[in-house]
């Protein structure tokens, strides 16, 4: 399956809408995910980011509009193939665990790919080290600390070379180390030519790591462009979307304001 590997725009959402229980959660959202790019998604609580991610990954069906992968609508893809291409990290790490131990959790998708047991062991060990979960391999995923759960759920998805990775708030609850490591891990994936989508509330990270940012408000796309120019949009605009520019951008604006006077 090599078709479309060089595709610069692997995933595209076109006028996607979704409603549930009579409430429109996502309305007519259109944007594209590009290869080699780290796309940040931001927006208020309850704006519809997580729902949008579920739509992009094909776990939910849009009530209108379509999502297409390599130009082919998601519904036309075979389930197994789709999952090999799109990885997905849920907002609640516990929702993603399918096995009883940390070790098995990391080995799960490796085993599905029929790696030899020694190969699996090697890879799992290196993941354990990379995500600082050593000594926890026999624990149940549910008895980890919240931050460890988050790292485990990310690690389990990183173990695959999926072309598109959708992450819902991958860094929350992490200490400085872990968060930076996670983000640079994701950045490295993007630099390798893969597509990464990160939902986050951390504007410093958006500033530092993202190539492009999409702002969701009330279920529709409000802004789509580089982070730098987002900060220079009117204050009212940012305020309504619950965004606070990173501290450096704030200072820059303050300086420029002074210069203008």
């Amino acid at each position, binding site marked *: 399956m090599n078709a479309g590997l060089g595709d610069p725009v692997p995933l595209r959402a076109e006028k996607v809408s979704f409603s549930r229980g009579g409430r429109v959660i996502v309305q007519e959202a259109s944007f594209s995910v590009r290869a080699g790019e780290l796309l940040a998604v931001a927006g208020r609580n309850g704006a519809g980011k997580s729902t949008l991610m579920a739509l992009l990954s094909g776990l939910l069906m849009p009530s209108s509009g379509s999502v297409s992968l390599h130009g082919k609508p998601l519904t036309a893809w075979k389930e197994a193939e789709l999952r090999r291409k799109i990885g997905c990290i849920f907002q609640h790490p516990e929702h993603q665990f399918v096995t*009883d*131990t940390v070790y098995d959790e990391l080995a799960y998708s490796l085993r599905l790919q029929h790696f030899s047991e020694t190969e699996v062991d090697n890879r799992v060990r290196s993941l354990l080290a990379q995500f600082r979960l050593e000594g926890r391999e*026999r*624990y*149940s995923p549910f*008895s980890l600390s919240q931050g460890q759960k988050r790292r485990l759920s990310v690690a389990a998805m990183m173990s695959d070379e999926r072309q598109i990775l959708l992450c819902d708030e991958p860094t929350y609850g992490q200490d400085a180390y872990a968060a930076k490591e996670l983000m640079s891990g994701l950045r490295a994936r993007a630099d390798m030519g893969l597509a990464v989508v990160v939902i986050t509330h951390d504007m410093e990270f958006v500033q530092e790591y993202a190539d492009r940012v999409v702002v969701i408000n009330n279920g529709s796309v409000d802004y789509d462009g580089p982070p730098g120019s987002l900060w220079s949009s009117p204050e009212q605009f940012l305020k309504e979307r619950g965004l606070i520019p990173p501290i450096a951008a704030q200072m820059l604006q303050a300086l420029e304001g002074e210069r203008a006077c």
Partner: protein
Amino acid sequence: MKKSIFQFNTRTVVTIGIGAALYGATSFIGIPVGPDTSLRPAIALLAIFGALFGPVVGFIAGLIGHVLNDLLTSGTVWWGWALGSGITAAFMGLIYLAKGFDPQNGSFKGKHIGLFIVYGIVGIVLSLLFSGWFDIAFMGEPSDKLVVQVTAASISNIIVFLVLGVPAVIGFAKRNAKTSHLSVNE
């Protein structure tokens, strides 16, 4: 860590609530295998709740679950059968008192399996006899029909217990054996 069976804290009560709700809800499901008899997977739940939380929790969960189900399906409670559900669970829960038995921490040995099966079968037969007797004594049901009913129900319940209940408890114990970090080394 196993707790005393008479400890009644909020957690026990919530467990009873869940057990009862699950038992009540799954009691609707039955695969009819003959006149007046059906394989009720719900019996397996009694085995699980009894084994994991002891006879007292099992008894109350079974009783309340049965009463709820009766109320929802027919509006009348067949107390004999409701108590019977509780007694079944209580007998299955006797295994909880066995030494070294602790499926929540993955400790479930061969001799426990044997014991569990014995307790379960005895419990099923005894409770059905009790329900039958209760019906004859208090509800004025004719006795000849009940003999057939009790025998058929015993057989079908024992089948469910052996095919679903016992493996489920073993599955639980296995699952937890791996998760509790040190007991794997034994």
